[in-house]
């Protein structure tokens, strides 16, 4: 007991000696079992003072405790000294500036030396009052944080200084919505490490790297929380980590990592160049095509046999195609989606239509195959190079759209029209007709298609030629009114 007597200036002192805490309280010394060993502060030896009495006193500088002067040989050996932690609960003469405390402690020390028999060691401590700040997260839970750790966050700092909040439980600083208790814990860990100036850059870097190792979900939460607290270094750290995660991934992988919905149309994915207009009709058309492509893909997997049947007669299609000459105003549906290229497309169409039409007319039988060829290129599983590829040539686009519309239209019609009523050849013919029509007109003419299909229900009994002539008439009407409608 006598070993640990302390100057009476300090009212209550806690000394932790390895496993034991000795408390001097109200004139009595008692021991306590420590709760946790986490906060041991190691003092770095500053200087050795040879007292005038021949005794050796060592000044220890404790980062949080200020200064300690210890006379070693009487109480502890050198090893034990390292584990010494000083914690002051209440102190009268306190100030932050170490210089003051040094002199103060020196005088106190000298004074204590006058009465060496009473004091085995002198502990002089000047420490900042360890004050705590109360923080309240969005879900209502309140926690206490050391002030200096919390001050690392500019937002909290501002709240403390300007608004004077946080000093008690009732006046806790309420944190923004995005900070939940788990994330707050992480942030405080970060602050606790970094606010200490004593760490070297290398140490900080290692800490940061270990800190960042968490799943992407938490990383995202951490980023938004750090941003709302305006903790710039943490925001930078987490953003860099996220960028590193995103780097080098294909769109599919990015979607997977961040659980994003796959809600872009195929065209938008393919067209880094295309001017995606805001035209709702175009968007609707795009979505329609995208949906049909998907359906087609599924059906293709199931009905590979049916491909044979659908390689129908091309000849009648070519007849129809010959009707559609000279439609210079009409533009491929996709052309609209590249607003900046409209004029070019129109001119192109005139020249390329012959070739394109030949290709498309020769290609219904290759449609299915082309589907599987072109579709992989539009599937989201693609490499970045395909996405970076400029829009495929106009012919292949035309084929794309014709490929899309040919067979899906078949499916579409299936829904509307009863199979029993249809003559299969007629049905195919009709479908091709409708597909051609749709393919060559913009969405405006969609109504026309609906009309035609409804008419077709009624006139299915007519002969093929009559059907063609009606289609011809419609085409003609379309020719005349098409550009104006558009």
């Amino acid at each position, binding site marked *: 007991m006598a070993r640990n007597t302390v100057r009476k200036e300090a009212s209550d002192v806690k000394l932790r000696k390895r496993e034991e805490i000795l408390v001097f309280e109200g004139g009595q010394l008692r021991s306590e079992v420590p709760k946790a060993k986490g906060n041991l502060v190691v003092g770095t030896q500053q200087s050795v003072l040879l007292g005038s009495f021949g005794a050796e006193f060592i000044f220890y500088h404790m980062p949080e405790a200020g200064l300690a002067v210890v006379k070693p040989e009487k109480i502890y050996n050198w090893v034990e000294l390292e584990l010494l932690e000083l914690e002051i609960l209440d102190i009268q003469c306190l100030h932050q500036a170490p210089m003051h405390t040094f002199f103060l402690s020196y005088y106190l020390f000298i004074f204590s030396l006058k009465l060496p028999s009473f004091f085995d060691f002198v502990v002089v401590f000047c420490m900042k009052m360890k004050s705590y700040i109360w923080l309240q997260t969005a879900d209502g839970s309140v926690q206490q944080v050391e002030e200096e750790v919390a001050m690392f966050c500019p937002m909290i700092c501002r709240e403390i200084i300007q608004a004077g909040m946080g000093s008690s439980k009732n006046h806790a600083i309420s944190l923004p919505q995005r900070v939940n208790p788990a994330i707050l814990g992480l942030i405080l860990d970060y602050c606790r490490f970094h606010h200490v100036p004593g760490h070297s850059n290398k140490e900080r870097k290692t800490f940061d790297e270990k800190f960042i190792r968490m799943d992407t979900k938490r990383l995202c939460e951490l980023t938004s929380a750090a941003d709302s607290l305006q903790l710039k270094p943490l925001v930078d750290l987490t953003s860099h980590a996220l960028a590193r995660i995103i780097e080098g991934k294909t769109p599919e992988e990015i979607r997977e990592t961040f659980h994003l919905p796959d809600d872009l149309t195929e065209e938008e994915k393919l067209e880094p*160049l295309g001017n995606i207009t805001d035209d709702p009709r175009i968007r609707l058309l795009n979505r329609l095509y995208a949906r049909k492509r998907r359906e087609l893909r599924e059906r293709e997997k199931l009905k590979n046999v049916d491909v044979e049947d659908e390689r129908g007669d091309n000849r009648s299609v070519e007849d129809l195609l010959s009707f559609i000459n000279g439609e210079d105003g009409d533009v491929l549906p996709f052309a609209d989606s590249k607003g900046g290229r409209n004029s070019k497309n129109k001119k192109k169409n005139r020249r390329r239509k012959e070739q394109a039409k030949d290709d498309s007319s020769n290609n219904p039988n290759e449609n299915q195959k082309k589907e599987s060829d072109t579709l992989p290129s539009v599937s989201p599983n693609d490499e970045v190079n395909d996405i970076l590829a400029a829009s495929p040539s106009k012919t292949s686009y035309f084929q794309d759209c014709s490929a899309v519309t040919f067979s899906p239209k078949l499916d579409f019609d299936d829904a509307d029209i009863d199979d029993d009523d249809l003559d299969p050849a007629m049905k195919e013919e009709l479908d091709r007709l409708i597909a051609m029509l749709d393919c060559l007109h913009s969405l405006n003419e969609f109504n026309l298609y609906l009309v035609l299909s409804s008419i077709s229900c009624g006139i299915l009994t007519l002969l093929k030629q009559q059907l063609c002539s009606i289609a011809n008439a419609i085409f003609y009407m379309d020719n005349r009114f098409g550009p104006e409608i558009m």
Partner: protein
Amino acid sequence: MVALPTPPPPTTIQGGTISTLHPDILQTHILTLLDGPTLAATACASSELHALSTEDKLWQKICTSTWPSINDPIVRSIIPTFPSGHRSFFSDSYPLLHHNHHSSSFPTTNTECFVSAVDIYYKNVPIFSKVETTETLSDWFKSSPFRLDLLEPKEFVQTWIQNQPSEKELSVEQLEENITLSWILIDPKGRRAMNLSSERPVSVQRHWLTGEVVVKFSTIMAGDGGEKEYVECGVMVCCGEKEGGEVEVREVSMVMEDMEGKNLAGKDGLVILQEAMEWGERKKGKGRKEGKGRYEEFVERKKERKERMKKLEKALDMACIATGIAVFVSFWTFILFR
């Protein structure tokens, strides 16, 4: 051009995906750290990311950091006219050009001029950047051989590259390993661009007379057929050594050659370039040696073609000789046995 509708910032917190991040954070902190291909990938990932990733400022930053010559005022005035601004420019010029099949369409726009933006890098640090405009409408251009020169005949460009002091002459290997070039040809009227250089040199040789090192970057394009079946568009960079051991660039030029090694005339070259710009596919390079591989393939084809022509010539020769002899013999038989 119609502006994209921006999605509203996410108001509900769903389980911590990237969509919980406020769009501002995403934009200012994360997307700015990504490079070109990655940004393009994020633009294709979801509609939210798409709207954020297609911001022109991001792409502008990427373009200017990749090609310093973009900062030139001429180029800067052209790029905004592109369909999606810097994004389409980047996606036109960054990947390598593959133009392997000739399509028989007529070019639709008559280009009035080409703007070439050239950057030469040594160890990925730019050493030389220049922008040059070439008009293509005049008859003079059309009839003269297709050649674009960037430096005046006596103009040299100093670089900071030091020749290794142990070598007496400029080291060929050193240059081959480290020098890269990007030659972007911009068509202001058609609003497209393409990169005419294989990223790495396809051949590095020492010129027999002057001792300079000629570094060649070339792209192979499909041409009209016949002897223009494949056309090589080659960029030649001549580097010489100054007294102090520093390397200087003495000539940067582009020529187009057909399979017989003949330089194309301006008109033909123009047609082929226009076509490549329209229809050429831009694909990410599959490796460092891809450009060189294609060039070597081209050289092989040239050789094959030469052999074929030779054989044909030989056959023709034989035929001519045979006909000659036949005529001779028949004439004399006619005379003698009349």
